[in-house]
């Protein structure tokens, strides 16, 4: 930090005695605004956008991205990245389908699916934490190997599970709301609490903000890194289970490109790719932005190839606007 900058801060320190600064919440406020704008635009141009059914669809789509995004937010705050989400979801869906075909009781199959997801995530985590493999490379390897394994063992064909009451229940709406959305929101509450109020969550911020200082203050940096990727795997596994309940089969080709939607949602949500800064609320709003764009563009009947162009542009513009807003409010604060 430059010294003149610092001195200016000192000069204005009396002006900012409160712990709550507008800049700390600028990111969330601008995202609320973006969502409101998207709603106004799509409500007035896209037929059926505001219908109850479509709103439920938005929630269900949001769950697919959101559940994985909660964990990825923590991973990115810790200064890491996980690109293996999509293949992990597909792989777990296939694995779950096979377990059920073999007659494993459904609850046990669920537990095994989540445990396997956590274990595979932990492999990436161990590679990162103890062998210094960059997490991008570790999870890229996972990305390729998991998709490949799933395609290899299924020949890219769906693995059907037959009739399963428990999985059917997971796809049956409660008071009009899909269980996937409820699970997403419950997990959101858990992650928001963990990230803000627990020693584990704050350690994640400390590692992303200054890993050396975190290490010196006794935080178990390596263990937390492994735990983060294990959690990432477990969340992807939950998404995989929900996918099976929705499709009625395990599917090696499913969740294609999901990792990019997840990372886009986290980044749009204001989490810094360099680590140390981010929030769960930001990611929730980011997930909504990404989902709304996808949903609205489909309803508008835009050419699916061109949709990708629009989506890409909107994501970059959203992040750009966010960075500008934060910069401006910070400079105003420092004065």
């Amino acid at each position, binding site marked *: *930090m*430059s*010294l*003149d900058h*610092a*001195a200016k*801060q*000192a000069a204005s*320190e009396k002006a*900012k*005695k*409160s*712990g*709550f*600064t507008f800049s*700390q919440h600028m990111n969330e406020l601008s995202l609320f605004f973006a969502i409101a704008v998207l709603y106004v635009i799509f409500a007035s141009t896209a037929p059926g956008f505001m219908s109850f059914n479509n709103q439920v669809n938005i929630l269900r789509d949001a769950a697919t991205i959101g559940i994985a995004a909660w964990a990825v937010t923590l991973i990115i705050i810790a200064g890491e990245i996980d690109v293996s989400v999509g293949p992990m979801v597909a792989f777990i869906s296939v694995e779950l389908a096979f377990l059920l075909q073999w007659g494993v009781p459904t609850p046990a199959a669920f537990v095994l699916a989540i445990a396997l997801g956590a274990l595979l995530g932990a492999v990436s985590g161990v590679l990162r934490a103890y062998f210094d493999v960059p997490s991008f490379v570790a999870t890229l390897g996972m990305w390729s190997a998991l998709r490949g394994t799933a395609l290899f063992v299924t020949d890219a064909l769906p693995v059907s599970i037959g009739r399963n009451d428990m999985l059917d229940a997971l796809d049956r709406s409660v008071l009009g709301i899909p269980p996937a959305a409820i699970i997403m929101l419950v997990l959101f509450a858990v992650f928001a609490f963990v990230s803000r*109020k*627990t*020693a*584990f969550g*704050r*350690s994640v*911020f*400390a590692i*992303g*903000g*200054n890993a*050396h*200082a*975190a290490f*010196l*203050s*006794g*935080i178990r940096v390596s263990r937390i890194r492994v735990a983060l990727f294990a959690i990432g795997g477990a969340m992807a596994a939950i998404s995989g289970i929900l996918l099976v309940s929705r499709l009625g089969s395990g599917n090696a080709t499913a969740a294609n490109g999901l990792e990019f939607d997840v990372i886009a949602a986290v980044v749009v949500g204001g989490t810094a790719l360099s680590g*140390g*800064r981010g929030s769960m609320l930001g990611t929730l709003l980011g997930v909504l932005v990404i989902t709304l764009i996808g949903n609205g563009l489909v309803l508008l009947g835009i050419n699916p190839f061109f949709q990708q162009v629009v989506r890409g542009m909107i994501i970059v513009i959203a992040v750009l606007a966010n960075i500008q807003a934060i910069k401006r409010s910070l400079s105003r*604060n*420092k004065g």
Partner: protein
Amino acid sequence: MTTVSEIGQAAVPAVASLKGCTRRYPGVLALDSATFDVAPGEVRALLGKNGAGKSTLIRMLTGAEIPDSGTVLIDGAELTHTGSGRAQESFEKGVRVVYQELSLVPGMTLAENLFLGRWPRKGGVIQYAAMEAEASEAMARLGLDLPPDRLVAGLSPAERQLLEIARAMLGKPKLVILDEPTSSLAAAEAEKVMAAVTRVAAQGIAVIYVSHRMNEIRQIAHSATIMRDGRIIDTVDVKGADTREIVRLMLGSEASQAPVLEDRSLSETVLEVKDLAVWPKLASISFSLKKGEVLGIAGLLGSGRTELLQAIMGVRRFDAGDIRADGKSVKSAGYKEMVRRGFGYTPESRKEEGIVPLLGVDENTLSTNFAGVSTNGVLSASRMAEATRKIIERLHIKTARTDTPIGTLSGGNQQKVVIGRWVYAGSRVMLLDEPTRGVDIEAKAQIYAIIRQLAAEGRSVIFVSSEIEELPLVCDRVLVLRDGALQEEFKSPNIDQDSLMAACITGH
């Protein structure tokens, strides 16, 4: 305060002691049978040049290093661990260090940083209310009145330093060691830190205060221990000690006959700085640089030396005054423009800003002007090798090949490449910020010779250094930077080390 000082002098058992500690590194005696005591409530200044053994002494106390012979006692008991547990043992006995490089997490709150990794918690949930109450109290004890839920990112450097000290104060320490805590602060900010140090000592905690600023030391320290060449030379009462006496102890009495340099500087002025202000570090700086002159700038760490060079180079904006290169104002010139006008700058931190370690000597040298060795934008390997070889020969750089990665070279040879880059670029005015830092003695002498040679060719050099003894060896003229202004001027051959050092460390 007097009572505290009396406690310091009385027969109170020492909080920390070294008894005949010796530590030898390959080729260096870092600590030579040092015996050292510090009493509760005492503020002890620790003085000495770079490499005098201050850091080794501190590492003995913190248990980061084990003496080859001799013992370390903390609170009356000897440190017994001989492995990595020693640091923990020393910590548990109450030794805390605040280093220069800060260890805070900017994106977290003051309270979270204060208790980093040791947050008070119940079942993994952090007890924010209790933690913030305790944080407020801990900060108030040092005169830091800030809301504990504010982010560290918004703090001034002095406030960050105070937060570090507050962190060191947690858990009832016996001894707090501060390593140049004010070096990066402007004078007004430093006052806050010093006030906090006085408060720390008033609580009966011993403080070791590493600093070179005599006015600070006089203000807060009871006594000063002076080190030189790994030995503890003397411990003096600061109130009675004369600055020149302390300087003599720091530098020793080795013959410091300055060489007679051949002054080749011409009457033509290449650079004129007038009433330059870079707030808050530099208030009013005026000097001129002649063609063929080597001008030394002496000053302590944090005195604004780097800011001055950066302002001249257009890297840092200045708040007032004027800089003229060859009679033309450079007020709106940026870095590129200054390079075009024949200025070259080698930064202080060679590793971070000076070199690209994995690229070859050739690319590191030629990066100032790739166009000179390329045709239509395509680099020519033979011309690159030829141009690099010229620089290698001129500056006596030791490297196996022209494309050897520069990171594998010794510090001295890396520095020669960094200087050579501007020789290749044809710079007429070179601003060298601590060009001999981290360089062995032989390479230092070579760098001095190179600088003299460059001057003899009619180039002008500004040579910034905190190593007082090297300035008379290379400079035609030395200006002393202190308290934001140039305080004194020395002209070769009358550049006397003792006077120079005294001028650097004396207060207002």
